[in-house]
């Protein structure tokens, strides 16, 4: 009990520390130089309608590469970790999923994947992007797994998608360095007309690759977790 009291005190102190931020911080009245630059120059420089996307994929593209890497390394870790258990696999006989679930899954799965693809392909125009799209695709797989826990995926396919899309991403980045002005520069492909699908240079390509990669990775993670569950 004393321990909890102590923790509460500690957190209260920590809260005060955070709270001091409220005293000194002021809401912006106008954007500082950097975001203002992004707001004003995204369209001419990068050609993306969605400024956030421009920031994510181009200006701070290196972060995004890191993000992808994080998901990749997390997925690899999970795969490595869970694959190791060589326990004899005994069949589980879960209660079959309801008719509604299995039926709607068949209906919805393609739609969800399609929607995901739409979200990442239009990332430079509308809210959304590769991560969001990838996550949506992964929900499709989640639905699949829920409807049929015993389902077998083609690991190879997912892995291939993941690898190829990841590699392509990096290669595009290198192309940016060779053909454009720097690593991950999107402008080595023509920027096109602002607001159209084929605009903003390499952004849609990159975001699509990210979407595929994220989708494949998250699905892989889900699948691995499910497999382990099957082992239990």
């Amino acid at each position, binding site marked *: 009990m004393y321990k909890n009291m102590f923790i509460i005190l500690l957190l209260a102190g920590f809260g005060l520390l955070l709270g001091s931020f409220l005293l000194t911080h002021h809401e912006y009245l106008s954007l500082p130089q950097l975001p203002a630059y992004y707001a004003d120059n995204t369209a001419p420089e990068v050609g993306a309608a969605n400024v956030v996307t421009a920031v994510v994929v181009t*200006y701070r593209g290196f972060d995004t590469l890191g993000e992808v890497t994080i998901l990749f390394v997390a997925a690899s870790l999970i795969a490595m970790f869970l694959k190791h258990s060589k326990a004899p696999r005994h069949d589980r006989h879960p209660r079959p999923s309801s008719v509604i679930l299995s039926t709607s899954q068949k209906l919805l799965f393609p739609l969800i994947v399609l929607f995901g693809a739409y979200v990442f392909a239009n990332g430079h125009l509308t809210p959304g992007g590769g991560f969001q799209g990838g996550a949506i695709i992964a929900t499709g797989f989640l639905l699949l797994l829920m409807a049929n826990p015993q389902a077998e995926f083609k690991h190879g396919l997912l892995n*291939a998608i*993941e690898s190829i899309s*990841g590699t392509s991403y990096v290669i595009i980045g290198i192309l940016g360095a060779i053909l454009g*002005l720097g690593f991950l*520069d999107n*402008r080595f492909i023509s920027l096109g007309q602002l607001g159209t699908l084929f605009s903003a240079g390499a952004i849609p390509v990159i975001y699509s690759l990210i979407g595929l990669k994220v989708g494949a990775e998250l699905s892989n993670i889900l699948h691995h977790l499910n497999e382990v569950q099957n082992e239990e």
Partner: protein
Amino acid sequence: MVSPVHIVSIGLITAFLLGLGKKSQQQMLVFVLMIATAAMTMVSGSWLIGLMTGSLKPTDVFTAGFKPPFAINLRMTMDEAVLTTMVNVFGFLTVIYLFDVLKKAGKHLLSIIVVFLIGLNVVVMTRDLFNLFVFLEITSIATAGLVIIIQDSKSISAGFKFLMASSVISGILLIGIIFAYSYVGNLNIDFMTNLSMVKGGAVAVFLVMTAIILESKQFPANGWALDMYESAHPAIGSALSAVSAPAILFVVYKLMPMVPENWHPVIGLLGLITFAFSNFLATRQENIRRMLGYSSVAQGGLMLTVVAMSVYFGQSFWFIILGFLLTNFFAKAGLFWLNGIVNSDDQNKWGILRKRPVLFFLFGVFVVAMAGLPPFPTFFAKWEMIMQLAQGNGWGWIVLILLGSIFEIAFLFKWFGRVFHAVKDQPAEPVIPWFKEFPVMLFGAGILATSYYFIKYQQFDNLFVLIPLLIVAAFVVIDFLPAFIKNILLIAALTFYGYIIYPEIKGNIMQLVFMSVFLVGGILTLIPGFATKGTRAGFYPFAAMTIFGLIMLVNPGDNLTFFMGWEQMALGSYILILRGKKAERPAQQYMLFSAGGAYLMLAAFGMLPHFAGDTFFGNLSGLIPGAGVVFVLFALGFMLKTAAIGLHIWLPGAYSEAEDDATPLVSGVLINAGVLGLFWIVTSFGPQQLFGYDIFQLMGWIGAITAIGGNMLAIYEEDMKRLIAYSSVGAMGYIIFALSMDSKLGLLIALYYMVLHFIYKTMLFMSAAGVIYRTKTRNMYEMGGLIKSMPWSFIVVLIGIITLAGMPPLAGFAGKWMFYNAVVMKGWYLQGTMVFFSGIVAFLYLYKLIASVFLGQLKDNHRRVKEAPFVYLLPQFIFVIAIMVLSIFPQVLLEPLATIIPDRVPGEAILWDGRLAMTSFGYWNAFAVMTTVIVMFATIFLWLTYHSRKAQKVKQFNIVFAAERPFRPETTHVSYNMFAGYKKALGWLMTPLATQFWTGISDWSTAIADKVRSWYTGNGQTYAMHLLLYAFVLYLLISGGKIL
């Protein structure tokens, strides 16, 4: 030139493509990984070379083609080039080292490794705060992945604790970054140097900095890291220690410009506290990996200090940090890898290494390098650091550093000693695959090369430093040769060195005297080595190191060279001692006390410039007012070597357990180093006060008590070598006393006695070695009657003890005679009497020594014992001749010695009138005494011979024995506990206060360490709380309770 960003792209493409691999292609995948890491190494390495040669300029890489702050930029300067090269080389070697693991582990692990490396590379290179965060996270997750290469419950739970901790840390970091952004409106480090000036911005700086500091595993919020070190595969531990930690510290360095100036000392102190405490706790570790973990954390703390104080250190910053960084990189990685090779956390299992001389040598190199002994970079870095800190009066800092260092030495050398002696029960020839040996060897070469450059950079004197070091190195290389050849070579090397050094020093009698003692002593003590068969692996390099270390002490006047020589001599002699069969504990004690003394001296060297500028401490004017503390530190340091009472407990063990023929070197010759130092401080500082008390007075008492104590302890020894060793303590007390009289006569006595003690003690130890060599025992009560079979040894011992006792007509009397005159002139009657008393007490053990061994009843098992080998006797008789010459013509030595003593020293000197020595008190003519005695002796001897010309020799038991005839030597030879009556009367003086005191210190520190380390409960939650608590306390420390 390939852009540094391609380190990342190469790595990532590899990582992603590995996913395509099939299980059956695993081996190929490993090779792909190898190639990739090699390519990454080449990129960063080519930048390093380019920047070093100047063909490349430091560059910023703009990602996405926008200038900062609009996009993320990576920087490649010398700093980054060094670090990324370190990371990538290390990665490459790790892949090789883990070849067998990776072959089985599956492709995911390969990806994780390469991602880990990428993460570190970018952490080093990036200039964007948020990008830094992202890649830190990558590194963290990859680390978690690496920890579970061994998937046992220990490593899994350690990994979870790590994840919890890193979640908390990254939370703190992220909130800090966000705050920072909200205050300055961008995320580039170079554009937020004014952050702390913005109102409230200090909080952001604080949060970011705290997170990074926590990430660098500072005590006491580092339980998670320790658990990880303990449970992870050694290769991973090595990665965490050798590359992760430096990368994080580099982040600290990057962020330092935005940290307010007045926080620097706080952060620095945190690092030092970590250094001191982690090393302290490491002393209690039996588990090697955890111990290495503590050590890694400690090194990290030290480096954090340097980094935090980079502004303060200014010019020397790079020198210091590189010294620590590279040593930690090579040595720690090497040690972890060796751990992997041995594949056990049990120190006793490490005996495997003894079967592999090269690996064992590297193990020693790593340990020594970690411990900060010369000639390795840490030594120089530590020296420079202490000097710099001392300039700013950072005494508390120095104390912490030195404390930490002594603990470090404690556990490192405990380990080393254990391994050195853990030879038993090992498999005949351990199978060690090449890919495990290769990285270790490469890193061993790395640290040696680094040392080479560090020494070169310092521009030492060729003659006094470089040539000796080269000779030592040469003996390491030729260690495989037979002992006989190496002995000849070393003696030749020493002779040759003497030949080339003589013209340099012939003008300076001080140097000449000590140099001759060390060189001649070195050569003569080596001669008995000819009796050894086989290769005697590992002896000659360290004998050379010891002797040349001593030689460095007699250098032309550079504090660093002196200190380096001192440490080198300590190290060399430590190994020589350790080589003895039962020497593990004594050697450890020796090392600890040596190191303690050395660190006291180091502190003194730090203080010295405040009083004397850059002058060599031996060349001061003798009128340095108010330098009492410096003097005391120096004096303590030197008196540890000369084993003043209370500080002497290491000596008997160390001297007696050393190899018998090495003992003369480590005792008779080496102990003079302490005398040299004491002589120098006494003459160069002049009288000093401490709290208003005259230090010389104090030293005089210490000397007197030491003289009595040493001799008293010697009386009750049954062990021949221990007896002689304690006698050394007594003799040193005599010298300390003489020095502290600070009069012309006193100093002369000290110098004279130094030479004399060197001669007779070396002689006695050699003679003892000869006896032990033949009888195979050191217990005197097991010997007896050896005069019949070893008459020459007997003569040597007889001459030795007559000299030691100071009986006329031999040379020892000169010392006694001067001593009385000096005491009476000085008026130190009580102390003088004590020293005199100790001289009489010496008779007891001298008698015991010679009588128990050579006289009395010959034992049955020694009936066939032969005289000691000729090579043992030869140097002894050279010494005997020297004593004889000195006895007849003491002025040969005394007159030159007197010229060494500076004029400022008060008191009268000896006046010489031909052969008559005079003071205002007394007079003495050695030649006349000698002549008279010889004439008397000859006359009486002839008289006796005439009368007993028909004397017949009788058998051993032909004695009149209470009407019985004894039939066994054991029952007739009275030796064991010979001075029982004396013990009964004065035994209370022998209460082992010193031993009790040091044992108490040891027990006490053990208890404290156990208490402190129970802080690491092993519960991940507790660890997470530690992190928050640390942050909060740090906040209070920095802000002083106010809002930043």
